[in-house]
């Protein structure tokens, strides 16, 4: 849900109530991102263009994660590089504005992901993880994480910036209002550890 300030409702001019950064960010978003990611960032207007204003996504994605995704894109996918150093149209401050705009959709402030999501007591079991991935995840994310109806998981730029905690959070909490369900009461912590390890291994198969 987009944050709305009470005074803005009184005066009835929502546009004027956002900060200058958010207003500039909205302009960039509408010009360059809306086509694939949707009017309100709901995602999937273009296949695999994820929901950018999803609260679970924003809670777990750091500013650095968002900045790299916008600047460098996801090579070999339809997500282009928009950063000026890669030949794109957006300078660093434009990207900061875009991030501020996306953050304006976030319900709660981000907090560091809990350490229990970062490490596991047990080592991952890749064999079990691969079996579970094939059963539960491959249908939408592809056999090797190349993406299908859902976004790809094997992109090296994604895997470099997505921490284990980010991946665990996505599996446990899902993405509300999308097809990505919350699996925290479906998989055991060990199974999620196994899946994170499987996803990490996709990077080596990228582009094969």
């Amino acid at each position, binding site marked *: 849900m987009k944050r709305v300030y009470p005074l803005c409702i009184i*005066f*009835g*001019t929502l*546009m*004027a109530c956002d900060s200058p950064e958010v207003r500039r960010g909205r302009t960039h978003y509408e*010009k*360059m991102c809306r*086509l*694939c990611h949707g009017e309100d960032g709901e995602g999937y*207007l*273009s296949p695999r263009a994820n929901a950018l204003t999803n609260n679970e996504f924003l809670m777990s994605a750091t500013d650095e994660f968002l900045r790299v995704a916008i600047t460098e*894109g996801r*090579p*070999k996918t*339809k997500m*282009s*590089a*928009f*950063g000026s150093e*890669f*030949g*794109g*149209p957006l300078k660093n401050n434009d990207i900061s504005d875009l991030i501020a705009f996306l953050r304006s959709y976030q319900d709660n402030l981000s907090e560091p992901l809990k350490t229990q999501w970062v490490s596991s007591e047990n080592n991952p079991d890749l064999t079990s993880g691969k079996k579970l991935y094939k059963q539960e995840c491959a249908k939408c994310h592809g056999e090797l994480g190349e993406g299908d109806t859902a976004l790809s998981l094997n992109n090296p730029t994604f895997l470099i910036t997505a921490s284990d905690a980010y991946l665990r959070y996505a599996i446990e909490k899902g993405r509300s209002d999308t097809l990505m369900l919350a699996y925290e009461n479906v998989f055991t912590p060990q199974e999620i550890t196994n899946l994170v390890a499987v996803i990490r291994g996709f990077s080596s198969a990228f*582009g094969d």
Partner: protein
Amino acid sequence: MNRKTLLLAILNLTLSPLFINCGATESTEGCPQLEYVGSGPIPTNFTSNQQLLSIDVIYPAYEKGEKFVFIDARPPSDYKIDHIKDAISLPFYDAERCAPSLPSNAWYVTYCACPHNESQHAAEALEKAGFKNVWVLDEGYLEWKKRGYPITPPKREIHENSTLDS
């Protein structure tokens, strides 16, 4: 300040941002120069009433050097890596702004890799600006590359210099 003046001041402050851009004309700075893929006759096979046109119709016209413009509607970062030989770069988000800098009576084919999300957006912007002869490469750029049709830089060169080629 009386009550009426105060109310008018508040109304002005709250509504003014909505009218800031009224009447402003966007510049065409940085827009691409016109460049045809060939100097022959205008394409004779682009007869479809549909905006999407098959690669099997477009490529023969390109190969024969017929006179049309290929527009790469992807962001310039993608165009920089590789693009259809002799295509110009006009990103989908700049098509509306740049339309006035291009002749509306030329023949155009837009393309992207989506396979045609960004290219259709660009084509619609040109049509909205009064362009009559605009088509979209249906199968998209990746199919063009897959078939080994001409690109810049040539495919062999990309393999030597870049890891981004698919």
